[in-house]
């Protein structure tokens, strides 16, 4: 694998800068809330700047090659090195992780979860960021594994400490589930290592040597990796941790979980499992395809059954990641490109939806769909943003979600390497039906929550309503006053205001990105396509 080795410091700095911030925070006085948040934002912002610099320095003409490549000694005894690099496949996700952390930090300024202890919260977030970024740059299995697992604990605590009612159960479930997958994944990594002659854990070497492993052995090793990655994705039937974790997690946790963490699994498939074990991948592809499509339908049905807005969004992740996996399972560059785009798109859109869910919860103190209605009257901007994200999520062309779904569905028409066409075409049609279901549950959600009149419970508590009242005549004011009077004793809801400054700050980039990538997807396809094409070509070479 050809590499470019200029500016070798860049990735290391970008990845470990958050840890430095975490270290600083550790010694920051606990009472200085704004100072702590400031340091957090500053660190994440600096990391983001490094990310932007990386974007600038990246050689887009050679995006199939690993750039900023470093291959330093780390654990020589087990033949694992500090091998890092960035190519077109990982660049979008790497930068996305930085951006998401930064924006979530900004969001936290005004929206600290109730449990308090900002310091610990932000430290965890920064550690999380290092883990996420590291996973995307690692070019060595062991390094990958370390970063992959590094995200576990911070997320466990984030859910467990700052989460909702049922957080204890949810956090432990999340943890054990993922642990289960990664334990088998580690075993598979080692098996792969020894089957390739035990020479190196470096990706490049394993991709070279992996193809020559016996087919049966490949299938077994792939099975181990499949467990690890599929749990993380999550694929049906390993998804049950996800709704619980998402529902219980604090907003920030949900956003990061949806935007980045789930992608670690799919990224693992694209980066590790498939290129290193071509025969295994081919043997498993139909199963993955079937499970992916099951996930699409199943996730959608799950959504239709939900009464809780956040849980619904969580279930929709299962469906959306199904599209991503469907794309991957075709083993074509078309599908894998789609999957990679889908990852980023899903990260932006579902991340945004979780932001909204968090803010709604913050204002209404409930996410029960039947209690929420008329959001457009009480918080018009929030309501429209929700609508926008729902539309993006259901795959409306012109918004980012489409470019993950549409090519993925398309690619299933003609899977690669002699995979069964009738099977995948059937899957394609079912997946296409899945888009209808997606429309159904998202619009249903939107209709129930945003349209209509506000329920009596919350009526008259919003800024927007007050403003409307002020604009009318005396009679209105009188009736409004009377209206207010009846709710005087009920202060809990007197805080339904529209989108606020920090929310705007943290959301706008998401919204802009959804539109920009939706309108001009080439921005991302151009970066990914050469790398993916090369990957699939190599796959073709080893599969004959």
């Amino acid at each position: 694998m050809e590499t470019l080795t200029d500016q070798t410091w860049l990735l290391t700095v970008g990845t470990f800068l958050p840890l430095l911030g975490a270290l600083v925070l550790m010694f920051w006085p606990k009472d200085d809330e704004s100072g702590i948040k400031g340091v957090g934002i500053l660190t994440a912002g600096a990391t983001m700047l490094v990310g932007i610099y990386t974007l600038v320095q990246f050689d887009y003409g050679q995006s199939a090659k690993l750039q900023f490549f470093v291959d330093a000694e780390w654990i020589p005894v087990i033949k694992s090195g500090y091998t890092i690099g960035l190519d077109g496949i990982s660049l979008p996700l790497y930068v996305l992780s930085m951006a998401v952390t930064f924006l979530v930090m900004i969001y936290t300024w005004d929206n600290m979860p109730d449990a308090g202890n900002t310091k610990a919260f932000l430290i965890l977030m920064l550690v999380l960021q290092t883990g996420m970024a590291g996973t995307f740059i690692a070019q060595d299995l062991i390094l990958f594994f370390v970063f992959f697992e590094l995200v576990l604990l911070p997320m466990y605590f984030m859910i467990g400490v700052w989460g909702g009612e049922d957080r204890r159960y949810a956090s432990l479930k999340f943890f054990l589930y993922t642990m289960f997958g990664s334990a088998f994944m580690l075993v598979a990594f080692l098996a792969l290592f020894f089957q390739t002659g035990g020479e190196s854990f470096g990706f490049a070497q394993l991709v070279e040597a992996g193809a020559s492993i016996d087919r049966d052995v490949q299938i077994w090793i792939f099975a181990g990796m499949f467990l690890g990655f599929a749990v993380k994705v999550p694929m049906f039937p390993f998804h049950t941790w996800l709704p619980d974790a998402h529902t219980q997690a604090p907003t920030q946790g949900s956003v990061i979980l949806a935007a980045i963490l789930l992608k670690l699994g799919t990224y693992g498939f694209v980066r590790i499992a498939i290129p290193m074990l071509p025969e295994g991948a081919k043997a498993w592809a139909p199963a993955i395809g079937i499970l992916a499509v099951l996930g699409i339908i199943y996730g959608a049905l799950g959504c239709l059954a939900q009464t809780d807005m956040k849980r619904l969004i969580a279930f929709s992740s299962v469906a959306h990641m199904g599209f991503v996996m469907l794309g991957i399972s075709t083993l074509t560059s078309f599908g894998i490109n789609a999957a990679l785009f889908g990852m980023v798109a899903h990260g932006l859109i579902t991340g945004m939806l979780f932001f909204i869910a968090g803010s709604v919860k913050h204002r209404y103190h409930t996410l029960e769909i039947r209690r929420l209605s008329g959001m457009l009257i009480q918080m018009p901007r929030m309501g429209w943003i929700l609508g926008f994200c729902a539309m993006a999520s259901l795959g409306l062309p012109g918004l980012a979600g489409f470019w993950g779904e549409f090519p993925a569905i398309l690619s299933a028409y003609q899977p690669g390497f002699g995979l069964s066409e009738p099977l995948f075409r059937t899957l394609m049609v079912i997946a296409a039906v899945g888009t209808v279901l997606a429309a159904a549950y998202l619009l249903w959600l939107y209709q129930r929550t945003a349209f209509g009149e506000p329920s009596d419970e919350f009526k008259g508590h919003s800024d927007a309503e007050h403003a409307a009242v002020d604009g009318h005549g005396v009679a209105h004011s009188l009736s409004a006053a009377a209206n207010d009077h009846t709710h005087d004793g009920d202060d809990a809801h007197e805080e339904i205001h529209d989108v606020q400054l920090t929310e705007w700050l943290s959301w706008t980039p998401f919204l802009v990105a959804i539109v920009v990538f939706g309108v001009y997807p080439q921005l991302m396809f151009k970066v990914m396509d050469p790398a993916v094409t090369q990957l699939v070509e190599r796959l073709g070479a080893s599969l004959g």
Partner: protein
Amino acid sequence: MLGLLLAQASDWITPVIDWHAVAPELVLVVGVNVVLLLDLNLADAKKWMLATLTGFVMLGALVPVVTLAVIGDDSRSLFDGRYVIDEYALILKAFFLLVAYVVILMSQTELEEGGYYQGEFYVLMLCSVLGMVMMSSARDLISIFVALELLSIPAYMMAAWRKRDVKSNEAGVKYYLLGVFASGIMLYGMSFLFGSTNSTLLTDIGAALTDGDLNGMEVVGVVFVICGFAFKISAVPFHTWAPDTYEGAPTPVTAFLSVASKAAGFVALVSIIFLAFPNASDVYQPLLWVLAALTMTVGNVLALRQTNIVRLLAYSSVSQGGFILMPLAFAGNSNAGGSALNAVVVYLLVYGFMNLGAFAIVIAVSRKTRSGEISSFGGLFGYAPGLAVAMTVFFASLAGIPPLGGWFAKFNAFRAVLQAETNAAYVLAAIAAVNTVISAAYYMRVLRSVWMDDAPDGDQSPVVTPSPIVAALGITVIGTIVVGVIPSAVTRFAELKDLTGAVVP
């Protein structure tokens, strides 16, 4: 008659003793005597000096270990190869001394505040450590036996150190009776080995035992010897004493037992397996395979049920023992043999750090809460975030989560097993993988209390941690993290290729 004896005596050749090589032991022996004598003459108020002195003795003994390592001769062999100082021995000596030092830091305040006998405790401790240090070098059945008893007998007494406490009594008695019983069985096995091979020197035994050509006596000998050490390392089903003793004994002693004493057992087991049984792999490999699988699984599922933190840690250390044992089940494999040795040593080093650290936290916290229940850790994160974070480090490391030391230890163990590339290896690895998850369940349950629950009594006053414990925590936290992030720090030691004279397949 007398003449005959004299004639024989005239054959006596004074052995050449490499004084540098035995310097660590000598320092400890001197230390034992000094502390004992000083204890007689010190006023009660000044007994704290004994702890400091003992600590210095440990560190003093470390000095010759370091000089020996720096000189770096291949190996020094004494008494016709019955006592060998090689790289392996040096690493473990250093490890035992360091562990003992940390345990002393942990016990100091405990002993002072509990009103226990201090002088005697430290003397016994020094004796026990002496036994461990000897164990690292012992390459003969007799010296192994002597070292084993030297480290065990003081430990029996230390376990019962809280004389008036029924639980502590019980802990001591159980440990003692079963320990001696196990020694008896082991000795019986040793006698068979001696009888069959006509030597007590491990390498000789190794040369005499050959796979496929073993007689019943030899097999019984091998099995009984391994069972004797399996007791020491509390492998299931020889683990029964461990939870009871750990719970009843004073916590620093528990820490000592669960780390140093167990490590000593492993050291002996490793020596014997690699030196004496290299060609009896048909016997010991299946045995260790079953023991490892049982130990991990039973230790874990029983740990799931515990509500007492010390008892939980006891079962946890049982299951950790299973992971350490796991690579040894493939010690005879031509691929995995070398890695198995590395894996065990690395695991022991890491395990020492994290388990001691965990116990140090328990000691620090229970000084405030006066309770051993897991629920008593609720809200720790609120009132003592530092301790909570440290505890998180240790427990997460025990659970094997990167980038903490525990993951690398586990990884190495998996690596050694899978290197064997046999079906038995894959199955054991799969069992171990499942066990990793089960173990994570109870470790995380504890952390859940620490982070997510409120203090059970609503007491939010901060914990006052005495400086020795802080020091102990500092050493262990740094050790745990450094090993995880830069595993090369310990793999340098694990690079040792073999034991002197060992027949690594």
